[in-house]
Protein backbone atom coordinates (compact mmCIF):
# COMPACT_ATOMS: atom_id res chain seq x y z
CA UNK A 1 0.00 0.00 0.00
CA UNK A 2 1.32 3.41 -0.94
CA UNK A 3 1.26 5.50 2.22
CA UNK A 4 0.51 9.16 1.45
CA UNK A 5 3.43 10.34 3.51
CA UNK A 6 6.09 8.18 1.81
CA UNK A 7 6.65 10.60 -1.05
CA UNK A 8 7.06 13.52 1.33
CA UNK A 9 9.44 11.40 3.42
CA UNK A 10 11.50 10.62 0.32
CA UNK A 11 11.52 14.34 -0.43
CA UNK A 12 12.95 14.97 3.05
CA UNK A 13 15.57 12.27 2.47
CA UNK A 14 16.65 14.09 -0.72
CA UNK A 15 16.85 17.35 1.24
CA UNK A 16 19.29 15.64 3.62
CA UNK A 17 21.47 14.53 0.75
CA UNK A 18 23.11 15.91 -2.35
CA UNK A 19 24.20 13.48 -5.01
CA UNK A 20 26.18 16.15 -6.87
CA UNK A 21 28.30 17.64 -4.06
CA UNK A 22 31.36 16.37 -2.27
CA UNK A 23 29.77 17.24 1.08
CA UNK A 24 26.28 18.03 2.35
CA UNK A 25 25.96 21.18 4.40
CA UNK A 26 22.87 20.87 6.58
CA UNK A 27 21.47 24.36 6.35
CA UNK A 28 18.53 24.06 8.73
CA UNK A 29 16.71 27.24 7.69
CA UNK A 30 16.92 26.28 4.05
CA UNK A 31 15.72 22.74 4.70
CA UNK A 32 12.81 24.04 6.79
CA UNK A 33 11.83 26.50 4.05
CA UNK A 34 12.04 23.79 1.40
CA UNK A 35 9.93 21.38 3.42
CA UNK A 36 7.19 23.85 4.31
CA UNK A 37 7.06 25.23 0.78
CA UNK A 38 6.82 21.71 -0.64
CA UNK A 39 4.09 20.84 1.87
CA UNK A 40 2.08 23.93 0.94
CA UNK A 41 2.62 23.78 -2.80
CA UNK A 42 3.06 20.11 -3.64
CA UNK A 43 1.70 17.94 -0.83
CA UNK A 44 -1.19 20.07 0.46
CA UNK A 45 -3.79 17.86 -1.15
CA UNK A 46 -2.36 14.32 -1.17
CA UNK A 47 -0.79 14.49 2.29
CA UNK A 48 -2.43 17.26 4.28
CA UNK A 49 -5.87 16.88 2.63
CA UNK A 50 -5.97 20.65 2.80
CA UNK A 51 -9.00 21.16 0.50
CA UNK A 52 -11.11 19.48 3.21
CA UNK A 53 -10.44 22.33 5.64
CA UNK A 54 -9.33 25.10 3.29
CA UNK A 55 -12.20 27.13 4.77
CA UNK A 56 -10.29 27.08 8.04
CA UNK A 57 -6.67 27.93 7.14
CA UNK A 58 -4.32 28.55 4.21
CA UNK A 59 -2.07 25.79 2.88
CA UNK A 60 0.97 27.71 4.13
CA UNK A 61 -0.36 27.75 7.68
CA UNK A 62 -1.33 24.10 7.41
CA UNK A 63 2.17 23.21 6.22
CA UNK A 64 3.87 25.06 9.10
CA UNK A 65 1.56 23.44 11.63
CA UNK A 66 1.96 20.01 10.06
CA UNK A 67 5.72 20.37 10.38
CA UNK A 68 5.36 21.06 14.11
CA UNK A 69 3.03 18.19 14.85
CA UNK A 70 4.81 15.57 12.77
CA UNK A 71 8.50 16.22 12.11
CA UNK A 72 8.69 18.38 15.23
CA UNK A 73 6.90 15.85 17.47
CA UNK A 74 9.06 13.99 19.98
CA UNK A 75 8.28 10.30 19.54
CA UNK A 76 7.28 8.12 22.43
CA UNK A 77 9.33 4.98 22.89
CA UNK A 78 7.68 1.65 22.12
CA UNK A 79 7.89 -0.87 24.99
CA UNK A 80 9.30 -3.43 22.52
CA UNK A 81 12.49 -1.52 21.71
CA UNK A 82 15.25 0.25 23.60
CA UNK A 83 15.56 3.13 21.13
CA UNK A 84 13.00 4.94 19.02
CA UNK A 85 13.19 5.24 15.26
CA UNK A 86 14.25 8.87 15.64
CA UNK A 87 17.24 7.74 17.73
CA UNK A 88 18.13 5.46 14.83
CA UNK A 89 17.85 8.42 12.47
CA UNK A 90 20.17 10.45 14.73
CA UNK A 91 22.70 7.61 14.71
CA UNK A 92 22.53 7.25 10.92
CA UNK A 93 23.01 10.99 10.39
CA UNK A 94 25.91 11.06 12.85
CA UNK A 95 27.55 8.14 11.05
CA UNK A 96 27.46 10.33 7.94
CA UNK A 97 29.53 13.05 9.63
CA UNK A 98 32.15 14.49 7.28
CA UNK A 99 35.13 13.30 9.35
CA UNK A 100 35.76 9.59 8.80
CA UNK A 101 35.80 8.86 12.52
CA UNK A 102 32.06 9.66 12.70
CA UNK A 103 31.40 6.24 11.07
CA UNK A 104 31.98 4.78 14.54
CA UNK A 105 29.33 6.95 16.22
CA UNK A 106 26.53 5.07 17.95
CA UNK A 107 23.41 5.99 19.86
CA UNK A 108 23.15 3.44 22.65
CA UNK A 109 21.79 2.82 26.10
CA UNK A 110 24.57 2.66 28.65
CA UNK A 111 24.13 1.54 32.22
CA UNK A 112 27.75 2.07 33.25
CA UNK A 113 29.40 4.28 30.67
CA UNK A 114 32.99 3.22 30.12
CA UNK A 115 35.06 5.55 28.06
CA UNK A 116 36.96 3.90 25.24
CA UNK A 117 40.08 5.99 25.42
CA UNK A 118 42.28 3.90 23.16
CA UNK A 119 41.12 5.70 20.03
CA UNK A 120 42.12 9.31 19.54
CA UNK A 121 39.36 11.39 18.02
CA UNK A 122 40.69 13.99 15.55
CA UNK A 123 40.30 17.63 16.55
CA UNK A 124 37.83 18.41 13.73
CA UNK A 125 35.52 15.61 14.83
CA UNK A 126 35.89 16.68 18.48
CA UNK A 127 34.68 20.15 17.52
CA UNK A 128 31.71 18.86 15.53
CA UNK A 129 30.90 16.42 18.36
CA UNK A 130 30.89 19.34 20.78
CA UNK A 131 28.36 21.10 18.56
CA UNK A 132 26.16 18.02 18.62
CA UNK A 133 26.48 17.77 22.39
CA UNK A 134 25.42 21.42 22.76
CA UNK A 135 22.42 20.91 20.50
CA UNK A 136 21.40 17.75 22.36
CA UNK A 137 21.70 19.56 25.70
CA UNK A 138 19.15 22.13 24.49
CA UNK A 139 16.45 19.50 23.92
CA UNK A 140 13.77 19.07 26.57
CA UNK A 141 14.17 16.00 28.79
CA UNK A 142 10.42 15.49 29.03
CA UNK A 143 9.06 11.97 29.26
CA UNK A 144 5.40 11.57 28.32
CA UNK A 145 2.90 10.11 30.76
CA UNK A 146 2.58 6.37 30.24
CA UNK A 147 5.92 6.12 28.48
CA UNK A 148 7.88 2.90 29.07
CA UNK A 149 11.10 4.96 29.11
CA UNK A 150 11.62 5.02 32.92
CA UNK A 151 11.41 1.21 33.09
CA UNK A 152 13.68 0.72 30.09
CA UNK A 153 16.15 3.26 31.43
CA UNK A 154 16.26 1.59 34.85
CA UNK A 155 17.01 -1.72 33.16
CA UNK A 156 19.37 -0.75 30.35
CA UNK A 157 20.64 2.71 31.30
CA UNK A 158 20.19 6.11 29.70
CA UNK A 159 20.69 6.95 26.07
CA UNK A 160 23.92 8.47 24.82
CA UNK A 161 25.57 9.46 21.59
CA UNK A 162 29.01 7.89 21.76
CA UNK A 163 32.06 8.42 19.61
CA UNK A 164 34.88 6.46 21.23
CA UNK A 165 35.67 8.40 24.42
CA UNK A 166 33.27 11.23 23.60
CA UNK A 167 29.81 10.94 25.02
CA UNK A 168 26.69 13.12 24.94
CA UNK A 169 23.40 12.39 26.72
CA UNK A 170 20.39 11.98 24.43
CA UNK A 171 16.80 12.55 25.66
CA UNK A 172 14.41 9.61 25.77
CA UNK A 173 11.98 11.29 23.38
CA UNK A 174 13.28 13.16 20.36
CA UNK A 175 11.64 14.30 17.13
CA UNK A 176 12.84 13.80 13.59
CA UNK A 177 13.75 17.45 13.44
CA UNK A 178 15.74 17.09 16.70
CA UNK A 179 17.71 14.29 15.05
CA UNK A 180 18.48 16.56 12.10
CA UNK A 181 19.42 19.58 14.22
CA UNK A 182 21.64 17.52 16.56
CA UNK A 183 23.53 15.74 13.77
CA UNK A 184 26.89 17.04 12.52
CA UNK A 185 26.37 20.10 10.32
CA UNK A 186 28.44 18.65 7.47
CA UNK A 187 27.70 15.17 6.16
CA UNK A 188 29.12 13.05 3.43
CA UNK A 189 26.64 12.49 0.60
CA UNK A 190 25.08 9.14 -0.19
CA UNK A 191 25.43 7.98 -3.75
CA UNK A 192 22.32 7.25 -5.80
CA UNK A 193 21.12 3.68 -5.57
CA UNK A 194 21.24 1.38 -2.58
CA UNK A 195 23.09 3.70 -0.12
CA UNK A 196 20.57 6.49 -0.62
CA UNK A 197 17.60 4.11 -0.84
CA UNK A 198 18.45 2.50 2.51
CA UNK A 199 18.62 5.95 4.11
CA UNK A 200 15.37 6.88 2.39
CA UNK A 201 13.79 3.71 3.77
CA UNK A 202 14.68 4.79 7.32
CA UNK A 203 13.33 8.31 6.78
CA UNK A 204 10.10 6.83 5.39
CA UNK A 205 9.70 4.70 8.53
CA UNK A 206 10.28 7.77 10.70
CA UNK A 207 7.77 9.92 8.84
CA UNK A 208 5.13 7.17 8.90
CA UNK A 209 5.43 7.06 12.68
CA UNK A 210 5.49 10.83 13.09
CA UNK A 211 2.53 11.24 10.75
CA UNK A 212 0.24 8.76 12.51
CA UNK A 213 -1.72 11.03 14.94
CA UNK A 214 -2.47 13.44 12.10
CA UNK A 215 -3.52 10.50 9.94
CA UNK A 216 -5.87 9.24 12.65
CA UNK A 217 -7.64 12.59 12.80
CA UNK A 218 -7.86 12.85 9.03
CA UNK A 219 -9.54 9.47 9.11
CA UNK A 220 -12.51 11.08 10.83
CA UNK A 221 -13.21 12.94 7.59
CA UNK A 222 -16.22 15.25 7.67
CA UNK A 223 -14.09 18.28 6.87
CA UNK A 224 -12.62 18.44 10.35
CA UNK A 225 -9.49 20.50 10.54
CA UNK A 226 -7.06 18.03 12.18
CA UNK A 227 -5.03 20.82 13.74
CA UNK A 228 -8.02 21.92 15.84
CA UNK A 229 -8.37 18.56 17.55
CA UNK A 230 -4.85 17.24 18.04
CA UNK A 231 -4.63 18.58 21.57
CA UNK A 232 -8.22 17.77 22.44
CA UNK A 233 -8.75 14.18 21.35
CA UNK A 234 -6.55 11.31 22.45
CA UNK A 235 -5.58 8.62 19.94
CA UNK A 236 -8.00 6.21 21.68
CA UNK A 237 -10.85 8.69 21.42
CA UNK A 238 -10.09 9.36 17.78
CA UNK A 239 -10.10 5.64 17.00
CA UNK A 240 -13.35 5.15 18.90
CA UNK A 241 -14.87 8.08 17.04
CA UNK A 242 -13.83 6.55 13.73
CA UNK A 243 -15.58 3.30 14.68
CA UNK A 244 -18.65 5.26 15.71
CA UNK A 245 -18.71 7.20 12.43
CA UNK A 246 -18.18 4.01 10.46
CA UNK A 247 -21.29 2.52 12.07
CA UNK A 248 -23.16 5.67 11.08
CA UNK A 249 -21.87 5.44 7.50
CA UNK A 250 -22.67 1.75 7.16
CA UNK A 251 -26.22 2.27 8.33
CA UNK A 252 -26.46 5.27 5.96
CA UNK A 253 -28.16 7.14 8.79
CA UNK A 254 -28.42 10.91 8.77
CA UNK A 255 -27.15 12.84 11.76
CA UNK A 256 -29.92 12.86 14.32
CA UNK A 257 -29.59 12.25 18.04
CA UNK A 258 -31.71 9.13 17.64
CA UNK A 259 -29.37 7.66 15.02
CA UNK A 260 -26.33 8.60 17.08
CA UNK A 261 -27.83 6.79 20.07
CA UNK A 262 -28.32 3.70 17.94
CA UNK A 263 -24.72 3.83 16.68
CA UNK A 264 -23.57 4.41 20.25
CA UNK A 265 -24.93 0.99 21.27
CA UNK A 266 -22.49 -0.60 18.85
CA UNK A 267 -19.55 1.77 19.17
CA UNK A 268 -19.38 3.95 22.28
CA UNK A 269 -16.71 6.63 22.40
CA UNK A 270 -14.30 6.82 25.34
CA UNK A 271 -14.45 10.05 27.29
CA UNK A 272 -18.17 10.60 26.75
CA UNK A 273 -20.90 9.24 29.01
CA UNK A 274 -23.55 8.92 26.31
CA UNK A 275 -24.43 9.66 22.72
CA UNK A 276 -26.26 12.76 23.96
CA UNK A 277 -23.09 14.05 25.62
CA UNK A 278 -21.10 13.42 22.43
CA UNK A 279 -23.85 15.13 20.39
CA UNK A 280 -23.63 18.25 22.56
CA UNK A 281 -19.83 18.35 22.75
CA UNK A 282 -17.59 20.58 20.63
CA UNK A 283 -16.39 17.65 18.58
CA UNK A 284 -19.98 16.43 18.17
CA UNK A 285 -20.98 19.83 16.89
CA UNK A 286 -18.01 19.96 14.50
CA UNK A 287 -18.82 16.52 13.11
CA UNK A 288 -22.33 17.68 12.31
CA UNK A 289 -21.24 20.76 10.38
CA UNK A 290 -22.49 20.83 6.79
CA UNK A 291 -19.12 21.83 5.33
CA UNK A 292 -17.82 18.36 6.22
CA UNK A 293 -18.14 15.21 4.09
CA UNK A 294 -14.87 15.50 2.25
CA UNK A 295 -13.97 12.33 0.43
CA UNK A 296 -10.90 10.75 2.03
CA UNK A 297 -9.75 7.29 1.11
CA UNK A 298 -10.36 5.70 4.49
CA UNK A 299 -9.10 2.28 3.41
CA UNK A 300 -5.69 3.83 2.81
CA UNK A 301 -5.77 5.59 6.12
CA UNK A 302 -6.64 2.45 8.03
CA UNK A 303 -3.73 0.54 6.58
CA UNK A 304 -1.40 3.31 7.54
CA UNK A 305 -1.76 2.72 11.24
CA UNK A 306 -2.66 -0.93 11.28
CA UNK A 307 0.80 -1.88 10.08
CA UNK A 308 3.21 0.24 12.10
CA UNK A 309 6.16 -2.17 12.09
CA UNK A 310 9.10 -0.89 10.05
CA UNK A 311 9.77 -3.16 7.09
CA UNK A 312 13.16 -4.26 5.82
CA UNK A 313 14.76 -2.90 2.69
CA UNK A 314 15.71 -5.89 0.52
CA UNK A 315 19.26 -6.66 -0.55
CA UNK A 316 20.07 -6.56 -4.27
CA UNK A 317 20.00 -10.36 -4.44
CA UNK A 318 16.62 -10.58 -2.70
CA UNK A 319 15.12 -7.84 -4.86
CA UNK A 320 16.43 -9.36 -8.08
CA UNK A 321 15.14 -12.86 -7.29
CA UNK A 322 11.76 -11.46 -6.23
CA UNK A 323 11.39 -9.40 -9.40
CA UNK A 324 12.52 -12.38 -11.50
CA UNK A 325 9.79 -14.41 -9.83
CA UNK A 326 7.17 -11.73 -10.50
CA UNK A 327 8.35 -11.47 -14.10
CA UNK A 328 8.03 -15.23 -14.56
CA UNK A 329 4.51 -14.96 -13.23
CA UNK A 330 3.64 -12.03 -15.54
CA UNK A 331 2.89 -9.79 -12.58
CA UNK A 332 5.31 -7.26 -14.03
CA UNK A 333 6.85 -6.92 -17.48
CA UNK A 334 10.48 -6.65 -18.54
CA UNK A 335 10.36 -2.84 -18.69
CA UNK A 336 9.09 -2.59 -15.12
CA UNK A 337 11.71 -5.10 -13.98
CA UNK A 338 14.43 -2.97 -15.61
CA UNK A 339 12.98 0.21 -14.16
CA UNK A 340 12.95 -1.09 -10.58
CA UNK A 341 16.42 -2.63 -10.79
CA UNK A 342 17.65 0.60 -12.39
CA UNK A 343 16.22 2.67 -9.55
CA UNK A 344 17.74 0.28 -7.02
CA UNK A 345 21.17 0.59 -8.65
CA UNK A 346 20.97 4.38 -8.92
CA UNK A 347 20.72 4.62 -12.69
CA UNK A 348 19.93 8.24 -13.61
CA UNK A 349 16.51 9.33 -14.86
CA UNK A 350 18.02 10.30 -18.19
CA UNK A 351 19.48 6.84 -18.70
CA UNK A 352 16.26 5.15 -17.65
CA UNK A 353 14.21 7.29 -20.01
CA UNK A 354 16.64 6.49 -22.82
CA UNK A 355 15.42 2.90 -22.72
CA UNK A 356 12.82 2.32 -25.45
CA UNK A 357 10.93 -0.26 -23.39
CA UNK A 358 10.62 2.08 -20.38
CA UNK A 359 9.50 4.94 -22.64
CA UNK A 360 6.87 2.65 -24.14
CA UNK A 361 5.69 1.69 -20.64
CA UNK A 362 5.39 5.35 -19.70
CA UNK A 363 3.38 6.06 -22.83
CA UNK A 364 0.91 3.37 -21.73
CA UNK A 365 0.34 5.51 -18.62
CA UNK A 366 -0.13 8.73 -20.53
CA UNK A 367 3.50 9.74 -19.99
CA UNK A 368 2.95 9.96 -16.25
CA UNK A 369 5.53 8.33 -14.03
CA UNK A 370 3.22 8.86 -11.06
CA UNK A 371 0.50 6.82 -12.73
CA UNK A 372 2.96 4.07 -13.67
CA UNK A 373 4.33 3.99 -10.11
CA UNK A 374 0.87 3.73 -8.58
CA UNK A 375 -0.18 0.92 -10.88
CA UNK A 376 3.09 -0.96 -10.45
CA UNK A 377 3.02 -0.75 -6.67
CA UNK A 378 -0.53 -2.08 -6.56
CA UNK A 379 0.41 -5.08 -8.71
CA UNK A 380 3.53 -5.77 -6.64
CA UNK A 381 1.47 -5.70 -3.48
CA UNK A 382 -1.11 -8.07 -4.90
CA UNK A 383 1.57 -10.44 -6.19
CA UNK A 384 3.45 -10.44 -2.89
CA UNK A 385 0.29 -11.08 -0.87
CA UNK A 386 -0.86 -13.86 -3.22
CA UNK A 387 2.50 -15.55 -3.08
CA UNK A 388 2.55 -15.29 0.70
CA UNK A 389 -0.95 -16.83 0.79
CA UNK A 390 0.10 -19.68 -1.51
CA UNK A 391 3.15 -20.43 0.61
CA UNK A 392 1.08 -20.36 3.77
CA UNK A 393 -1.44 -22.80 2.33
Amino acid at each position, binding site marked *: MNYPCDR*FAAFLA*HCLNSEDSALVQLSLGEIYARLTTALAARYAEPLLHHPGYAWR*MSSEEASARYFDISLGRALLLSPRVQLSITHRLLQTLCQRGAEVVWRQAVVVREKDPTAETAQVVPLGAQRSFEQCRKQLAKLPQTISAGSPSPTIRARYGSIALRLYSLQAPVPEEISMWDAVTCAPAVLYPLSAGEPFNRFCSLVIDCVRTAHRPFQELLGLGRGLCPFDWLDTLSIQQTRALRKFLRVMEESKAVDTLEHWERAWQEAPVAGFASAAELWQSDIGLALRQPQGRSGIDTALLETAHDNPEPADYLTEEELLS*TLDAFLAR*DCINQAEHSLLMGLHRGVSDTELKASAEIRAELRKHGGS*FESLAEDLLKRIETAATQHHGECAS
Partner: protein
Amino acid sequence: MRLVSNTVIKPAAVVHTVSVLLNAALAREDLRWLQRLADRRYEFRLLAAADREEPELPERGWHDLRHLLKASVASNNAELRLTVQAEGYAALVRVANRASRLHSLDGTIDLRLGFDGTGRALAVLEDTPEVRRALTQIFLTLEESDAAAPRDPEGDS
Protein backbone atom coordinates in the same frame (compact mmCIF):
# COMPACT_ATOMS: atom_id res chain seq x y z
CA MET B 1 1.57 -20.47 -12.57
CA ARG B 2 3.83 -20.95 -9.57
CA LEU B 3 6.58 -18.55 -8.75
CA VAL B 4 10.17 -19.38 -9.59
CA SER B 5 11.28 -22.05 -7.15
CA ASN B 6 13.54 -21.28 -4.17
CA THR B 7 12.39 -17.66 -4.07
CA VAL B 8 11.40 -16.79 -0.55
CA ILE B 9 9.31 -13.65 -0.67
CA LYS B 10 8.86 -11.36 2.32
CA PRO B 11 5.66 -9.52 1.30
CA ALA B 12 6.05 -6.50 3.60
CA ALA B 13 9.71 -6.05 2.68
CA VAL B 14 9.02 -6.38 -1.06
CA VAL B 15 6.25 -3.78 -1.00
CA HIS B 16 8.30 -1.50 1.22
CA THR B 17 11.38 -1.74 -1.01
CA VAL B 18 9.43 -1.05 -4.20
CA SER B 19 7.63 1.81 -2.46
CA VAL B 20 11.00 3.30 -1.43
CA LEU B 21 12.32 3.03 -4.99
CA LEU B 22 9.28 4.61 -6.61
CA ASN B 23 8.74 7.32 -4.00
CA ALA B 24 12.42 8.29 -4.09
CA ALA B 25 12.09 8.74 -7.86
CA LEU B 26 8.85 10.72 -7.52
CA ALA B 27 10.31 12.90 -4.78
CA ARG B 28 13.35 13.65 -6.94
CA GLU B 29 10.92 15.06 -9.51
CA ASP B 30 9.21 17.03 -6.74
CA LEU B 31 12.54 18.52 -5.74
CA ARG B 32 13.14 19.74 -9.31
CA TRP B 33 9.58 21.09 -9.46
CA LEU B 34 10.13 22.94 -6.21
CA GLN B 35 13.35 24.47 -7.51
CA ARG B 36 11.46 25.84 -10.49
CA LEU B 37 8.69 27.11 -8.21
CA ALA B 38 11.22 28.73 -5.86
CA ASP B 39 12.60 30.69 -8.78
CA ARG B 40 9.28 32.47 -9.23
CA ARG B 41 8.13 32.69 -5.62
CA TYR B 42 9.02 35.55 -3.26
CA GLU B 43 8.34 35.64 0.45
CA PHE B 44 8.10 38.80 2.51
CA ARG B 45 8.29 38.31 6.25
CA LEU B 46 8.38 40.87 9.05
CA LEU B 47 9.34 40.09 12.62
CA ALA B 48 8.17 41.95 15.70
CA ALA B 49 10.57 44.34 17.40
CA ALA B 50 11.81 43.26 20.82
CA ASP B 51 9.45 45.64 22.61
CA ARG B 52 6.37 44.89 20.47
CA GLU B 53 3.92 42.02 20.38
CA GLU B 54 3.31 42.23 16.65
CA PRO B 55 5.43 43.42 13.72
CA GLU B 56 4.75 46.84 12.25
CA LEU B 57 4.88 47.79 8.58
CA PRO B 58 8.12 49.75 8.05
CA GLU B 59 7.63 53.17 6.47
CA ARG B 60 10.70 52.73 4.27
CA GLY B 61 9.49 49.40 2.94
CA TRP B 62 10.90 45.91 3.31
CA HIS B 63 12.50 43.29 1.08
CA ASP B 64 11.61 39.74 0.21
CA LEU B 65 13.86 37.04 1.68
CA ARG B 66 16.03 37.02 -1.45
CA HIS B 67 16.34 40.82 -1.58
CA LEU B 68 15.08 41.00 -5.14
CA LEU B 69 11.79 42.80 -4.55
CA LYS B 70 10.88 45.63 -2.21
CA ALA B 71 7.41 46.14 -0.79
CA SER B 72 6.19 49.43 0.64
CA VAL B 73 2.84 50.71 1.85
CA ALA B 74 1.29 54.15 1.95
CA SER B 75 -1.88 54.83 3.91
CA ASN B 76 -4.47 57.15 2.38
CA ASN B 77 -8.22 57.58 3.08
CA ALA B 78 -8.75 54.18 4.72
CA GLU B 79 -6.76 52.57 1.92
CA LEU B 80 -3.36 50.95 1.92
CA ARG B 81 -1.49 51.32 -1.35
CA LEU B 82 0.96 48.45 -1.57
CA THR B 83 3.78 48.84 -4.08
CA VAL B 84 6.10 46.01 -5.02
CA GLN B 85 9.19 47.11 -6.92
CA ALA B 86 11.93 45.02 -8.53
CA GLU B 87 15.34 46.00 -7.15
CA GLY B 88 18.08 45.79 -9.73
CA TYR B 89 18.39 44.34 -13.20
CA ALA B 90 18.32 40.67 -12.12
CA ALA B 91 14.94 41.20 -10.47
CA LEU B 92 13.60 43.36 -13.29
CA VAL B 93 14.12 40.71 -15.97
CA ARG B 94 12.32 38.20 -13.78
CA VAL B 95 9.18 40.21 -13.08
CA ALA B 96 8.73 42.90 -15.75
CA ASN B 97 5.37 42.59 -17.53
CA ARG B 98 4.53 39.43 -15.61
CA ALA B 99 1.35 38.63 -13.75
CA SER B 100 1.54 37.30 -10.21
CA ARG B 101 -0.54 36.12 -7.30
CA LEU B 102 -0.11 37.85 -3.96
CA HIS B 103 -1.41 36.11 -0.87
CA SER B 104 -0.85 36.24 2.85
CA LEU B 105 -0.14 33.38 5.22
CA ASP B 106 -3.52 33.71 6.90
CA GLY B 107 -5.44 33.95 3.62
CA THR B 108 -6.76 37.48 4.30
CA ILE B 109 -5.02 38.77 1.18
CA ASP B 110 -5.34 36.81 -2.04
CA LEU B 111 -5.26 38.78 -5.28
CA ARG B 112 -3.67 38.98 -8.71
CA LEU B 113 -1.02 41.58 -9.27
CA GLY B 114 0.53 42.68 -12.57
CA PHE B 115 4.04 44.09 -12.95
CA ASP B 116 4.65 46.83 -15.50
CA GLY B 117 7.71 47.20 -17.73
CA THR B 118 9.63 48.95 -14.95
CA GLY B 119 9.11 46.04 -12.56
CA ARG B 120 6.51 47.82 -10.46
CA ALA B 121 3.18 46.47 -9.25
CA LEU B 122 0.51 48.22 -7.26
CA ALA B 123 -2.37 46.94 -5.15
CA VAL B 124 -4.97 48.87 -3.21
CA LEU B 125 -6.05 47.23 0.03
CA GLU B 126 -8.39 48.12 2.84
CA ASP B 127 -6.59 49.76 5.72
CA THR B 128 -7.72 47.51 8.53
CA PRO B 129 -5.79 45.90 11.41
CA GLU B 130 -6.42 42.48 9.81
CA VAL B 131 -4.88 43.52 6.49
CA ARG B 132 -1.94 45.20 8.22
CA ARG B 133 -1.35 41.99 10.19
CA ALA B 134 -1.69 39.89 7.04
CA LEU B 135 0.96 42.00 5.29
CA THR B 136 3.57 40.85 7.79
CA GLN B 137 3.88 37.57 5.91
CA ILE B 138 3.01 37.59 2.25
CA PHE B 139 3.96 35.49 -0.73
CA LEU B 140 4.20 36.70 -4.30
CA THR B 141 4.22 33.98 -6.95
CA LEU B 142 4.79 34.88 -10.59
CA GLU B 143 2.35 33.20 -12.89
CA GLU B 144 3.85 30.81 -15.36
CA SER B 145 4.80 32.40 -18.64
CA ASP B 146 4.93 30.34 -21.83
CA ALA B 147 8.67 30.73 -22.06
CA ALA B 148 9.53 29.98 -18.46
CA ALA B 149 6.68 27.71 -17.49
CA PRO B 150 7.82 25.13 -14.96
CA ARG B 151 6.38 21.87 -16.12
CA ASP B 152 4.53 19.69 -13.71
CA PRO B 153 6.59 16.66 -12.70
CA GLU B 154 3.83 14.32 -13.87
CA GLY B 155 4.26 15.65 -17.34
CA ASP B 156 8.02 15.41 -17.31
CA SER B 157 8.38 11.73 -17.79
